């Protein structure tokens, strides 16, 4: 028999022996022990390889029936049927899980929009001067693309087809390249909008919005650590990642740029000269105007941003409000003054005319006239005071920080345009059509969720629509692409949501049997400190990450861990971030790392699986460092939620 089978069977044997030992050890077998037995059996059954959703459903039903049977045998069947259908219906009408199919749909559409080729090329040209540029560009491409799609397999395969050949041809070490691709491809698990965090949020009852806000910086930090590691490694050992050759860096200039280069290499001045001078040779004015527009985009963007900032800074809403209130006050006083003299509708009108209008119509008219004059006076006063306030508002000076920022921006723009030659213009245009749309999509989706403008499901729907538009913009919005995305979305969401159905039936039975209480008692009796508890739970989750998939771990084991958290004063949000980071490590841990197998599938025959695993190890080490950093400085994850939601 093979090694793997021995390993698996001995694991199962240990589990079963543990269950038997527990049952024999217990003074009296309660239903709680049955619950633990169920937990042990379900892990064994999952390891046997039967579809997990139905294992959970069947086992939950059988053991749930036992639980009800021990209380009231007559009602047991009816009760367990009720429990099942209600649990199922709860998943069907779960308002958190709605976001899953929508995000998955967005992911498939973005993946099929086929902008990864351009994205990678533009990024690696942008990074050409950075040491290890190809590997750095790989990580960044992966981070952005994996964030938008969230599909590890597809991202690793695509990067294996695009970036890996480029790296190997440039003389990169086979292992380093493999590590960068696999590590980068797994970033989408952590960086929001990730499906893992939605599933965790739905299971643990933590707000998905806060999870997204919390996972943002740890995700960025992890990507940053990867990039930092690559740059340092490339500096220390240039033989592993030789700098790009001239040929690899060259950007083919279009004909207009070649002709205009005669005016000087600086894109901005050269284009302007070309526009008005006679030296534009035979380049059409429209081309030049268009290129000039593209060239001016950064300046325009910054100008618009600065104007917006200036307006908010110099006309603060608070000052204007106070002014408005004062004006209202003046006007109100004036009106009251006029009223007391004119006598319109005083609340207790002694000589009030309104009480008997039919008797003295003339008087009423006169009063109305007086009232009108009074109102006019008040209006004049009001406008005058408003004018004064408006003057005051204009006089509000922008803070010094703004002028400093303006100066810095101008200086940066100047430097930017001094360095901005035609080659850079070409790269900028490539970025504009690959990097910026994707970044904009992610920022719009994430921003609207995190700042509370939309619920995750609404933002996910908008993101899916954005994916459709993106596919349309790249000319890939045709029937086969949409059809494939739709069918894949249905299959993936059915997989996750049916698993959720099974797991919620299972965990209901587990709670019914009282397994949770036994575990709680046992954990409490261990007398762990919060740190020890966190470490222990993360180690358990890490080990479970070998035989089980992340979906299974979250839906089966989080209902057991999360109720323990308050005892140790651990924030479920913080725990969720640790779990997400931890499970991401499981994607990179040999021998089960899926990413390695996807890469092996598209790499040249002489790249062995062991080489890929060896390349992944340093990145796994970085992940452990990242988990450690998050332990020591929880603020990395909790700062943003605390600022935004006052946690």
């Amino acid at each position, binding site marked *: 028999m093979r090694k793997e089978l021995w390993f698996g069977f001995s694991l199962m044997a240990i589990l079963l022996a543990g269950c038997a030992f527990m049952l024999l050890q217990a003074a009296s077998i309660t239903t709680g022990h049955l619950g633990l037995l169920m937990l042990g059996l379900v892990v064994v059954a999952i390891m046997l390889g039967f579809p997990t959703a139905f294992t959970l459903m069947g086992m939950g039903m059988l053991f749930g029936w036992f639980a009800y049977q021990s209380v009231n045998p007559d009602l047991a069947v009816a009760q367990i049927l009720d429990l099942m259908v209600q649990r199922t219906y709860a998943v069907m009408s779960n308002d958190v899980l709605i976001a899953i199919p929508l995000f998955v749909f967005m992911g498939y559409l973005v993946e099929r929009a086929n902008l990864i080729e351009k994205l990678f090329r533009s990024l690696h040209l942008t990074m050409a001067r950075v040491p290890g540029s190809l590997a750095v560009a790989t990580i960044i491409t992966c981070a952005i693309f994996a964030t938008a799609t969230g599909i590890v397999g597809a991202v690793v395969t695509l990067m294996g087809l695009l970036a890996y050949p480029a790296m*190997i041809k440039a003389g990169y070490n086979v292992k380093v390249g493999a590590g960068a691709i696999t590590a980068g491809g797994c970033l989408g698990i952590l960086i929001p909008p990730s499906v893992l965090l939605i599933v965790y949020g739905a299971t643990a009852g933590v707000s998905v919005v806060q999870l997204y806000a919390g996972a943002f910086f740890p995700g960025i930090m992890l990507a940053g650590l990867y990039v930092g590691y690559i740059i340092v490694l490339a500096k220390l050992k240039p033989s592993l990642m030789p700098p790009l050759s001239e040929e690899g860096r060259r950007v083919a200039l279009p004909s207009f740029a070649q002709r205009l280069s005669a005016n000087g290499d600086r894109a901005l001045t050269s284009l302007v000269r070309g526009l008005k001078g006679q030296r534009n040779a035979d380049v059409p004015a429209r081309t030049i105007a268009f290129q000039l527009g593209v060239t001016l985009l950064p300046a325009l963007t910054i100008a618009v941003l600065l104007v917006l900032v200036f307006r908010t800074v110099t006309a603060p809403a608070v000052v204007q409000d106070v002014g408005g209130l004062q004006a209202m006050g003046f006007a109100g006083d004036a009106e009251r003054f006029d009223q007391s003299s004119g006598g319109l509708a005083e609340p207790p009108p002694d000589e009030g005319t309104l009480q008997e209008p039919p008797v003295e119509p003339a008087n009423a008219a006169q009063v109305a006239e007086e009232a009108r004059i009074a109102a006019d006076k008040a209006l004049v006063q009001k406008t005058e005071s408003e004018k004064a306030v408006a003057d005051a508002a204009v006089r509000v000076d922008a803070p010094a920080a703004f002028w400093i920022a303006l100066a810095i921006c101008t200086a940066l723009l100047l430097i930017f345009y001094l360095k901005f030659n035609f080659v850079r213009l070409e790269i900028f245009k490539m970025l504009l059509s690959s990097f910026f749309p994707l970044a904009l999509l992610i920022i719009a989706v994430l921003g609207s969720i995190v700042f509370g403008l939309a619920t995750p499901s609404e933002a996910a*729907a908008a993101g899916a629509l954005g994916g459709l538009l993106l596919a349309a913009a790249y000319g890939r919005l045709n029937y086969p692409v949409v059809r494939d995305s739709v069918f894949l979305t249905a299959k993936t969401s059915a997989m996750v*949501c049916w698993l959720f159905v099974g797991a919620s039936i299972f965990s209901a039975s587990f709670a019914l049997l009282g397994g949770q209480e036994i575990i709680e008692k046992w954990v409490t009796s261990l007398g762990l400190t919060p740190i020890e508890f966190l470490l222990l739970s993360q180690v358990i989750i890490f080990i479970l990450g070998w035989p089980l998939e992340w979906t299974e771990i979250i839906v089966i084991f989080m209902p057991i861990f999360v109720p323990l958290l308050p005892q140790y004063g651990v924030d479920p949000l913080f725990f969720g971030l640790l779990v997400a980071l931890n499970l991401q490590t499981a994607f990179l841990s040999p021998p089960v790392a899926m990413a390695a197998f996807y890469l092996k599938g598209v790499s*040249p025959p002489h790249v062995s699986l062991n080489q890929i695993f060896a390349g992944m190890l340093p990145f796994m080490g970085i992940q452990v460092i990242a988990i450690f950093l998050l332990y020591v400085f929880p603020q990395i994850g909790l700062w943003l939620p605390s600022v935004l939601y006052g946690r």
Partner: protein
Amino acid sequence: MQKILLAVDRFSTWVGQAFSWLIVALTLFVSWEVFSRYVLGAPHAWAFDVMTMLYGTMFMMAGAYTLSKNGHVRGDVLYGFFKPRTQAAIDLTLYIVFFIPGVVALAWAGYNYASDSWVINEHSNITADGPPIYPFKTVIPLAGAVLLLQGFVEIIRCIICLRQGYWPSREQDVEEVDVGKLKEMVHVKDEDIAQLDQYVVRAPK
């Protein structure tokens, strides 16, 4: 036999694929609702109910489709290392022990649940004047029935595999990571990869 199996496969697939288009409806509907609420200032009270209904119906009805394409997540530590006959024996046992009782119970309970809902003409109580909810609850028994049908097909597949020693074929479907399609998308040919091998071999270890 194989013909009947594939026919049932096709039926589950057809049902699942038909309902999977609801994701497009969901996307467009939610986007429209967001636009209508924030830009036109006209929110709809029933939007939330409709959202859950579209989502719930889609994933429930796609359950059998996913099963027919072997798409439900499995623990793959050992399964992949087993011989087909061992795989079939385990699957057959667990289909009978877990799947059939679980899904029969779900479909039966769902039938009663939905029929109660029809009898009282139940409407959603999330908003004051909610939309009718009995069609949505009817999805549970329907999805359970299709799933059960597909489950019987899978059981027969297990028996066939036990007899002949290899798994009977399934019909092709879109795959999440279709290497061939991805290669085509980024214009990489097999020759390119093979050519690359020389760099790997030449490189100092």
